[in-house]
């Protein structure tokens, strides 16, 4: 891709970007949100037409691509939100839209099921997926679905595979698997473009790295020329960032006061089995574990009463019912859900409405059935929270969907703060937000803890947990495996505890 420029009405997304991928290499594409990575990839996949510049693929030069042309040229893009179809089998997903056909009685074309099942098996083997190819994709885990996506690229005979944040919802083990697959792709001469926010992974997988910033290429470098992660970070943000630790003041647990306690929480589906923990005043309590360990399930049971079978919770020594979100919120427990877009925001509401909704609910009578709107009060509360959370917006009247992921997340935190939560549970709060916004989220969580609010944080990124939490609870397979004090905790110890 040479000198690509892309203008949208009012903004220039890419100014003059050149980018190339060689066969058999992994080329990392980095940059903060809004740097232009996705725009560049959308031009490659033919969704966007570049304003100027050219694209050359295997010697042929194009002014623009179309999605069809792009896939014919062997370009596959695996987006963060996977595009597999849940109610089709693995094999059907691989050959979607191009199922091989055979003729019966020499004229009636029917799908050659035997043929494509066989081909599917061969391809699936290459990515190391062990499930039978007639398994419904909906029954697979996220990492297996991703393998199906990669297999799909292989089925298309792709020459270039673009992966957009492929590890954002994978556990460390699954990530290792993915890297193994990527190495195989490399060996087959396929060029891989790898987009990620997780700097730690880069060295392990990348051959070259290109950093974008504000629509410009900052640099393209060989991986072995790069000395440290900080060098990359400073290229991305344009300044040297020190690795920050937010938990440098240890808590005196002998004198600390317990805010929240959960005892013997068990779910009907046994995805959480007899888990107990305590949350002290002033601490951030982390929850580590592989995906499927039961962390999210534990929190939705405590907060929403989902699948609740037995167990008790206490806030400041007083037992609380485990029933519904409304009850929990009323009693001062808040849950920032993992899936911001699906269970966090109200996409049709503006920022103000998103901020005041819960508070309004609590002030009204009969669970929100009886109560009037007070626009003035709403405005004050929303304005206060916007300042507290430092939400970057032109006006509270903007739709929440016009904000970046990080700012949407801040609005959701603000929503819970406005409802005067005493315990806040953050489930993967930094998923899919850029580095700057992540640091802000860490700051927010620490300052909540300082204000005496109980903070629980689930995260799959161990460095993040180690940098913020005071203690880390490790779960595996629905059971509590151990509680580590930050003084002794290391990534290795957490993984060891989890798999013990």
């Amino acid at each position, binding site marked *: 891709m040479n000198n690509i420029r892309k203008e949208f009405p009012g903004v220039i997304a890419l100014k003059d970007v050149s980018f190339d991928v060689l066969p058999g290499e992994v080329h990392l594409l980095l940059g903060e949100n809004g740097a232009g990575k996705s725009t560049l990839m959308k031009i490659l996949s033919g969704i966007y037409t570049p304003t100027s510049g050219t694209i050359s693929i295997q010697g042929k030069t194009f002014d623009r691509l179309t999605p069809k042309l792009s896939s014919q040229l062997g370009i596959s893009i695996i987006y963060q939100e996977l595009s597999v179809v849940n109610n089709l089998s693995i094999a059907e997903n691989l050959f979607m839209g191009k199922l091989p056909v055979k003729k019966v009685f020499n004229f009636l074309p029917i799908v050659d099921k035997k043929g494509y099942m066989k081909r599917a098996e061969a391809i699936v083997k290459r990515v190391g997926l062990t499930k039978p190819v007639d398994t419904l994709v909906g029954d697979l885990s996220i990492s297996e679905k991703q393998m199906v996506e990669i297999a799909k690229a292989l089925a298309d005979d792709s020459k270039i595979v673009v992966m957009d944040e492929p590890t954002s919802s994978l556990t460390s083990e699954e990530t290792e698997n993915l890297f193994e697959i990527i190495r195989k792709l490399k060996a087959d001469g396929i060029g891989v473009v790898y987009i990620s926010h997780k700097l730690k992974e880069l060295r392990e997988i990348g051959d070259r790295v290109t950093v974008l910033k504000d629509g410009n290429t900052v640099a393209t470098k060989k991986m072995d020329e790069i000395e440290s992660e900080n060098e990359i970070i400073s290229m991305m943000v344009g300044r040297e960032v020190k690795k920050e630790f937010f938990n440098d003041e240890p808590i005196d647990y002998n004198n600390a006061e317990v805010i929240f306690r959960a005892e013997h929480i068990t779910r009907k589906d046994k995805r959480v089995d007899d888990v107990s923990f305590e949350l002290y005043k002033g601490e951030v309590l982390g929850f580590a574990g592989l995906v499927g360990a039961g962390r999210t399930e534990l929190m939705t049971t405590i907060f929403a009463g989902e699948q609740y079978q037995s167990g008790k919770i206490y806030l400041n020594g007083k037992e609380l019912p485990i029933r*519904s979100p409304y009850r929990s919120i009323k009693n001062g427990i808040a849950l920032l859900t993992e899936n911001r877009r699906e269970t966090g925001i109200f996409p049709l509401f503006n920022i103000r409405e998103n901020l005041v909704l819960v508070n309004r609910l609590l002030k009204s009578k009969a669970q929100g059935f*009886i109560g*009037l709107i007070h626009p003035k009060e709403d405005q004050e509360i929303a304005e206060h929270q916007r300042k507290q959370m430092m939400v970057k917006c032109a006006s509270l009247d903007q739709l929440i969907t016009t904000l970046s992921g990080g700012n949407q997340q801040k609005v959701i935190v603000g929503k819970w703060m406005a409802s005067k939560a005493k315990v806040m549970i953050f489930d993967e709060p930094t998923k899919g937000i850029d580095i700057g916004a992540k640091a802000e989220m860490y700051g927010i969580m620490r300052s909540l803890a300082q204000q005496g609010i109980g903070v629980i944080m689930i995260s799959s990124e161990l460095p993040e947990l180690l940098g913020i939490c005071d203690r880390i609870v490790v779960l595996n397979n629905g059971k509590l495996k151990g509680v580590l004090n930050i003084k002794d905790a290391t990534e290795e110890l957490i993984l060891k505890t989890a798999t013990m």
Partner: protein
Amino acid sequence: METKRIGFTKFWDRFGTVIIFVGMLLIFSLFAPPTFLTWNNLKQIATQSSVTMLIACGEFFAILVAGIDLSVGSVVALTGMITAKLMVSAGMPVLPAFLIGSVLCGLLLGLINGALINVTNVHPFIITLGTQSVFRALTLIISNAQATFGFPGTFSKIFGGLWNGIPMSVVIALVVAVLMWFITSKTTFGRNLYAIGGNRDSAWYSGINVKMHILAVHTISGLCAGICGSVLTARLGAAEPNGATGYETDAIAAAIIGGTSFFGGKGTIPGVIIGALILGLINNGLNMCSVPTFYQNLATGLLLIIAVALDTFIARKK
């Protein structure tokens, strides 16, 4: 350029329905006979639209939470029939008959819809399609498929007469509309409905009791249809067992033309009222131009498609 287009989108979002309404009015005043633009005829349009307005107000709630209520036509017929029977066969005075036959039964039938949806977790489309048949059958059973008439004059006066020169049906529709407008825009309950329609899961995790709200939504829809039962019966002078057939289509059309999003979370009561008026306008205007009835359905159908397509098209332009 960007700002300009967003400005237009916002403008259309807010005033699109009004523009269609005014446009229609202009077109008909140009092409229809001069009698079209007279006070009497405009009053006629309002009266004809009032039934749709009433049902559409309730239907709006169901669509707002990304559901639907297909049973409203049957509820109108059943409540109308019960009210008539209470007066004619049981000799009940007008007011109690209205309160029991229309208001209470309307609420109850809506409650049944809501409860079935919540208990079975089946999509409202299916549930209300089923109750549409059930309620219609009940109407036929209790009436023995015969029309009921001969109710007291006060009934016709209250629900079909004039108040200071304005038809009572219009007054009732407007009172209900103002009440529903208040509920949707000024109460927490109303805002909760928009929240549920916008993102049901977020609403649940934010503490909104989604099921209770769904129950309430269908109860309101039943209530509006119930009140309409009396209005329609009074206007026709009889409770017809096959009356109000297909009225749910008009109600849905009015809500959608009025800017309600079929995916939930978007729309206003004033929009719905104008939507109902637009439908009335088309029928009346085409009548005036002596266009046969079946062409009127053609026009209504096309308008519905054009209005929604235009809306989607503009939304996509964003």
